[in-house]
């Protein structure tokens, strides 16, 4: 009670500007990197100019300052002012008290202050959903949903729904895992369609049918009731329209991809046009450009037009020589087929055993 009353009091004091009026020779910090400035023109010449005169305390309630040490920092003199800057920045939303002991009054003056509001975190919202294309094959395997802030976990499928064009919700479209698939920072969720509904001939596929059907339209809806770890709801309902096209049932053949190779002595982009939408998370880490001495060419990848195009931007200008793009055979299209085999391959199909496949080009 005391605590609340006190906090209220000094917020009120700050708002009304009473603080400045009562201590005209004191300047309080207005941001976290600020300092406290005290005009000491009227002070006795032999007065101690350290913590005895000016000290700042973290004050959770009205008397905490008496129980904990003062905030420590550096004192400097500028003209007739004593300046105190703490070693560490002030914290937004944390109540502080300045104690000024000039010896001129009976009691030291206590001046509370507060900087800004509690650390404001970014709004909770969906940044992107991969694959970004609206046209997706019937056997698309997964979505990656990127959020601006870390979300509350273990409740994703209560908020994420697949809805057909008549408004029917399919509650069994996605796999329910014991543990949801979150990135370490809690900002990327991976959801998978129940593979049983994608793989042909498996019982769930036969009973419930595929979650997505070729030629139909759907919506992936993320409800805004979902909160992030800070208790903020998503700012908007997020809806991704999906138009289903023919499933990817053919093996990936690297030779089907089209390469636009760059010119000598330029920073031209190296462009690969895929014949299908590739899984964006895997291609970014599993594709490399190497020169004829097997050295890695430094640069970065950009993914365009809903993952059907990937471009390599070199750090240095291209030199004459033979190059190869090395694809890890574990890279996948959005249906989970990799270079080794199809996701729902027949058990007698031979897996490709090579770890890498290459596309060569010459500059």
């Amino acid at each position, binding site marked *: 009670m005391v605590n609340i009353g006190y906090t209220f009091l000094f917020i009120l004091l700050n708002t009304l500007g009473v603080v400045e009026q009562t201590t005209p020779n004191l300047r309080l910090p207005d941001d976290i990197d600020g300092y406290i400035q005290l005009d000491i023109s009227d002070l006795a010449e032999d007065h101690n100019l350290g913590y005895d005169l000016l000290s700042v305390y973290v004050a959770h309630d009205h008397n905490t300052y008496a129980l904990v040490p003062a*905030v420590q920092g550096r004192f400097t003199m500028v003209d007739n002012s004593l300046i105190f800057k703490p070693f560490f920045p002030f914290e937004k939303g944390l109540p502080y008290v300045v104690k000024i002991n000039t010896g001129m009054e009976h009691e030291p003056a206590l001046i509370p202050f507060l900087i800004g509001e509690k650390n404001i975190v970014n709004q909770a919202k969906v940044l992107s959903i991969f694959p970004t294309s609206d046209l997706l094959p019937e056997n698309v395997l997964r979505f990656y949903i990127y959020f601006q802030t870390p979300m509350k976990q273990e409740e994703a499928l209560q908020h994420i729904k697949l809805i057909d064009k008549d408004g029917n919700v399919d509650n069994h479209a996605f796999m329910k895992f014991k543990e949801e698939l979150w990135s370490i920072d809690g900002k990327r969720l991976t959801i998978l369609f129940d593979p049983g509904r994608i793989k042909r001939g498996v019982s769930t596929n036969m009973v419930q049918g595929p979650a997505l059907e070729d030629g139909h339209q759907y919506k992936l809806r993320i409800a805004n009731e979902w909160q992030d770890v800070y208790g903020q709801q998503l700012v908007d309902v997020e809806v991704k329209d999906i138009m289903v096209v023919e499933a990817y049932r053919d093996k990936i053949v690297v030779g089907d991809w089209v390469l636009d190779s760059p010119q000598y002595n330029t920073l031209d982009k190296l462009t690969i046009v895929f014949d299908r939408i590739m899984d964006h998370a895997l291609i970014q880490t599993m594709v490399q450009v190497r020169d004829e001495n097997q050295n890695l060419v430094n640069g970065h990848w950009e993914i365009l037009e809903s993952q059907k195009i990937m471009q390599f931007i070199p750090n240095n200008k291209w030199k004459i020589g033979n190059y190869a793009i090395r694809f890890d055979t574990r890279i996948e299209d959005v249906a989970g087929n990799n270079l080794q085999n199809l996701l729902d391959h027949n058990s007698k199909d031979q897996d490709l055993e090579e770890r890498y496949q290459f596309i060569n080009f010459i500059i």
Partner: protein
Amino acid sequence: MRFKTFLSTLFIMVSVFTIQAQKIQSLGTLTFSPEGVLFAGDKVSGAIHALDLSAEIRSSEKFEINAYNIDAQVAATIGTSAANTKINDMAVHPISGEIFISVTRGHGLEAIPALIKVDASSHLHVIDLSMIKSTSQSLNKLPDGSQSFVARGTMAPATIKEKEKAKLPMRTMSIMDIQYHKGEVFVAGITNEDFCSALRRMPYPFNGKESISNIKMFHIAHDEYETRAPIRSFVINNIDGIDQIVASYTCSPLVLIPLDQLKDGAKVTAKTLGDMGNGQPMEMVSFSMQGDDMIFVISNSRTPRVIPVAGLSNAKSYSKDDFERGGKSDMGILPVGPMGKPVMFTGSALHVDLLNPMNFATIRRDPETGSLDLETVSIFFPNKLNNVMAEMDFPQYVKEHKDDKKK
């Protein structure tokens, strides 16, 4: 000629700069050299920093340090709340006898390191790191932070805390303990390899050279040879005539590793001397009691243990052949070997160091209130009378056999 001198000066400046360049991004495990250089593990930048605190002097010959609610006090001096403050380690300055505490202020990417001194009057001082002369040694083969642990679950579904534990990057185990010994710094932790349990050694003053050995050992409680889980804490003692690392692991084997086996690239099998019982050792401190060398071990799950170093000489080395197959627990045969005795302690110890030959300083949780306190306790009676209510606390109490001694 003058130009040449200028060039060589420049060269020296540049080479000194490369040793000094590392920015202090975090301060974790601490240890002092006898000269007063503070070595601090920095898991964020992946380095050991050497902070020259050799100018600190002793202000008072004998003192006790008792700073209660140390987390709240540390938080206050750095202008934040206790919830935003994490105490990582403490070490006693060998000359001043005062206590240095490494702290993390804030969380995640916004975290900043702080170093606090608690003086002989139990007052806190924030050390201005920009005023301290320091050098750094970057560590090689560190885990990059991309890989985390696995959630195991126990006999029940995994709790939130267990899931949080699994999310920790393996890099958090890169620097577990540091000891300075005869001009060298020894660091226990892990590398980025599969056989990752490692001991690093590097000369001080740092010259950029580092030797890394991988350590394998037989784990009695787990009934297996282990190569990944790192040494939690260690001390260096002369045992069987040679300098050896006495190291403790989780759950809780005690092993010996001769320093002369720690060569770059070596795969060393430690000698398992016994097992202190289930739980996780936190810190080990060498001390001497009535002329005998002792090791004080604190654990996060058990009362501290005092191990006489004499018992580790010519001790049996345990291997797979000494036991029946299967895990071992406190309910069964543990502890095993010359593991000394469990002793009482003033609450639950998080950190401990030798304050002076007669006393330990410790950061511990109060058994009654849970408060985090920095406290001094005697090595002979490592407890405080405020923790116990006994016959002798009654006003009517008269000591029996009072006169026996006189006879």
